[in-house]
């Protein structure tokens, strides 16, 4: 609360007063007293007015060009109007308010900061414009308040929480060749209804056949019957809607950032899921514009949520909201060491929850920092001996106490025993114990003090990490209902703490990166369970569906060749029921696109093995890593393509511009006159 300016001022005042009293000098004493009274008065006045700072309210509105909105659109610009309102009649100290910009938006112009004195009649206001990023959620946390007196001697930080979560829906791009959504001629079918060459109750003639008993008399073709001299019945075409179901992969593997590359695409598509959602939104919009029915199934490793194909703006908005919610999810991996997330989580908490990090409510005892270590059984210790020493300080202390205890107990028991049994062996033992026990105690305590000293000298960053961990563990424990015992659990259990930290960051929409590979070199996000979930969802959709449907699988199946069998079986079921299936595979942003059909997987390396080896040897470690990763992904893509090509299923790469037109072409084929698998 006292700034460095205030500290120096107080120090000078105290020096004057002390000198005045000790010398003694009435002038100096009076001067010191005047300054001290003024300083104390300022402090008290500041303290009294602080209660008003803690009662400030924030009102925030997000405007588009016309009115207040509750839904945002990806890539669009909006205006945010923030107003800070005070309660009560007491005037507040000088205040600077800074609206916290969410991570999902970009600041364009206008000021996020505003300063002045807030009162009930005169609120502080600011207006700024933002541009939304990709689909997801925007979370406005609130306003950071800094209060100070006019002299800058006292300072207080507060955060006014005013959480507003708004969905960013994927942008609906207008298509270049938009099909007619209005019925212009009576010959055409209404929008959303398509001719299907299968006997039905449509209006177009499909065929003529002999009359069968039970056929309605009105379908008899009288003229033809008269010519052929037997009853002939007219068969009409079916008029059916075309259904398309999108299966969008929302598993961990598409929620992690790209493994390599940093091109301009990576800024737009931070993760593979963003591109999938754009494709899904494009198909959804194209279908909605011609009133076709579109369904949506979001799946991950744990389960699937399904929306049956339907049309209408309510259905479309619901689908878009689901897509936005899926896009907002961040990856989670419980086996990641918490140290990886601690700096980010702590800096975020320090900004948004300064009141929960104050020593009065979230203290860090000095003994804990200097004498005790926690998280004694980490999954993996990075940092070797020093880290081990830092974490097992309590074991050292215990060792010392036990050594001291036995050094006291052993001689006493031997002495007692000697009073009962006077043997030579006992005497010798007593002599040895009496000699070595103090030495052992001395060595144990000396060694421990030395090791503690070593840790004190080299463990500054570890102590800081411990402080962060304790304070964050306290916050997440209280936040997620683990209190009062949760704090101690989180200090020891790395996995539980890491999981809660990820949840904390994910809830606040703070983007974080996780290591992609375990220390053993395994890819951490290849979830094979999602294949079973997807296969089940596909079979269920086939069971519910009718004829003439298109199933678009937007799923990351790269490098999951061994686990594809359930999905292949489900795809066969779908194809057997005369449906169409398309697989669109997300591609890591920034990675080179896979070669097209004319080129093989090694088309670029056709110069021969020796020149390739020479080229590789000239690369640096990072480029070599990128090259290897790219080649690995290309091979996996080709394998996937071959596997599905055997079933007649097209596989596309989501990074290309092709997917949306291809899906629409498939739908056009379904809409056209023939049955595709006839």
């Amino acid at each position, binding site marked *: 609360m006292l700034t460095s*300016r205030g500290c*120096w*001022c107080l120090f*000078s005042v105290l*020096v*004057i007063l002390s000198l*005045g009293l*000790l*010398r*003694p*000098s*009435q*002038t*100096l004493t*009076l*001067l010191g*007293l*005047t*300054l001290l*009274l*003024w300083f*104390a008065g300022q402090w*008290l006045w500041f*303290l*009294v007015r602080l*209660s008003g700072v803690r*009662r400030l309210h924030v009102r925030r509105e997000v405007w588009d060009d016309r009115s207040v909105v509750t839904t945002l659109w990806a890539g669009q610009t909006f205006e945010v109007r923030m107003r800070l309102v005070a309660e009560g009649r007491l005037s507040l100290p*000088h205040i*600077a308010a*800074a609206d916290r910009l969410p991570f999902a938006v970009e600041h364009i112009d206008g000021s996020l900061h505003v*300063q002045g004195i807030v009162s009930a009649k005169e609120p502080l206001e600011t207006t700024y414009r933002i541009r939304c990023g990709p689909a997801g959620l925007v979370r406005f946390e609130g306003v950071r308040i800094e209060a*100070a007196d*006019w*002299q*800058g*001697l006292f*300072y207080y930080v507060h955060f006014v929480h005013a959480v507003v979560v708004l969905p960013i829906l994927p942008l609906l791009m207008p298509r270049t060749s938009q099909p007619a959504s209005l019925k212009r001629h009576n010959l055409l079918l209404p929008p959303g209804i398509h001719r299907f060459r299968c006997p039905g109750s449509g209006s177009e003639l499909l065929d003529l056949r002999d009359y069968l008993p039970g056929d309605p008399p009105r379908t008899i073709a009288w003229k033809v019957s008269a010519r052929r001299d037997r009853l002939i019945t007219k068969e009409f075409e079916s008029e059916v809607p075309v259904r398309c179901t999108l299966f969008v992969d929302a598993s961990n593997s598409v929620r992690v950032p790209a493994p390599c590359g940093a091109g301009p695409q990576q800024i737009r598509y931070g993760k593979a899921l963003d591109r999938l959602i754009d494709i899904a939104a494009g198909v959804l919009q194209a279908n909605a514009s011609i009133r076709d029915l579109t369904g949506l199934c979001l799946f991950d490793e744990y389960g699937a949520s399904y929306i049956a194909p339907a049309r209408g703006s309510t259905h479309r908005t619901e689908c878009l909201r689901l897509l936005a919610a899926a896009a907002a999810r961040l990856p989670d991996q419980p086996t990641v060491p918490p140290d990886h997330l601690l700096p980010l989580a702590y800096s975020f908490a320090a900004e948004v929850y300064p*009141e*929960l990090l104050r020593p*009065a*409510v*979230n*203290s860090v*005892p000095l003994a*804990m920092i200097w004498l*005790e270590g*926690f998280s*004694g*059984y980490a999954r993996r210790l990075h940092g070797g001996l020093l880290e081990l020493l830092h974490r097992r300080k309590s074991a050292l202390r215990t060792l010392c106490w036990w050594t001291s205890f036995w050094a006291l107990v052993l001689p006493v028991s031997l002495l007692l025993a000697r009073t009962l049994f006077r043997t030579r062996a006992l005497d010798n033992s007593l002599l040895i114990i009496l000699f070595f026990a103090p030495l052992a105690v001395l060595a144990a305590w000396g060694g421990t003090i030395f090791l503690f000293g070593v840790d004190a000298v080299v463990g500054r960053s570890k102590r800081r990490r411990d402080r962060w961990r304790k304070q964050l563990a*306290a916050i997440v424990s*209280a936040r997620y209902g683990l*209190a*009062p015992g*949760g*704090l*101690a*659990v989180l*200090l*020891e*259990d790395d996995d539980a703490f890491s999981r809660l930290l990820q949840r904390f960051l994910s809830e606040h929409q703070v983007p974080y990166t996780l290591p992609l590979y375990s220390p053993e070199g395994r890819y951490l996000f290849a979830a094979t369970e999602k294949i079973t979930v997807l296969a089940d969802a596909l079979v269920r959709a086939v069971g519910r569906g009718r004829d003439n449907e298109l199933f678009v699988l937007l799923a990351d199946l790269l490098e999951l060749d061994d686990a594809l069998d359930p999905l292949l079986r489900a795809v066969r079921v779908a194809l057997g029921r005369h449906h169409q299936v398309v697989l669109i595979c997300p591609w890591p942003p920034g990675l080179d696109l896979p070669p097209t059909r004319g080129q093989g997987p090694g088309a670029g390396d056709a110069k021969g093995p020796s020149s390739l080896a020479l080229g590789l040897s000239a690369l640096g470690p990072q480029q070599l890593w990128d090259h290897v990763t790219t080649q690995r992904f290309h091979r996996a893509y080709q394998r996937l393509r071959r596997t599905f090509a055997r079933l007649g299923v097209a596989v596309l790469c989501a990074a290309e511009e092709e997917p949306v037109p291809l899906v629409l072409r498939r739908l056009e084929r379904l809409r056209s006159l023939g049955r595709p698998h006839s």
Partner: protein
Amino acid sequence: MSKAKNRKRKAETRSSPELRSHPAVRNYTLFCLSALFLIVVCLADRGLAWWCLVPALIGCLALLTHWDYGPPLVLLSLAGLLGFSGPLRYRSPPPGGWSRFPTASLMDLGLCIAVLAYVLGHYRLLSLTRYIFPPRLGRPRVEATQRRSADLVTGRETTFLGLALPLWAGLAVLVWGWVTEEAAPRNAPLEWWPVLRLVWAILAVLAVAGVTASYLRQTTATPEEGLLYLQDQCWRLMRREQGLLNRWLTWARLRAQRKQRFSGPSLETRRQS
């Protein structure tokens, strides 16, 4: 390289010429200069000869450079001048105690007002030209948003400042009078009795203010803060026992995981399959 960077940073934190010519900044500068002049007059009246110019020179230099340490240096120089102007040896209070000192003269009062005016004015000037909110940790560069906007300075503020100066000085005289007027109890050291009273009074005020502040903070605490406080108290009481238990539980869990990984699927999984 780092020195050049530091110089650049310092230059960036210096106030711009437009800010220096702002009426509010100009007024506060003039106010401080007047206070320094009054200090010189009061010190000269005490017969300090050319030494009376030292605090004023330091103050002027700090005003020109908008130096953060200006007021403490002026105060310390004043302490040095007034405290050590005589012979450098301990002087006991006059016989009969502090009450035998003559009452505060007009010049003493003037000096108190002038010094307070300078300190107040200089700090407010620094808030306008340097920063009012301290720079954040790890960010040595002061941003413009950390300054108080000079446009926010009103005439009312200056008026209150002018009224506050004699008020604080008068209050100090009253307090000092209250401290020195009461007779010391029997057997108490006569010369140190007022000092003891003053120190205890300051400590009592500090304690009361601290308790009040703590109470106010607790009454305005949010439920999250309350829960965190209770959890913290509970943890502080039992942290060693809880730590020991959880350490072993974690060890057992990790061991079970490791065993499961190396020995294949568990019995439950085998049954399910």
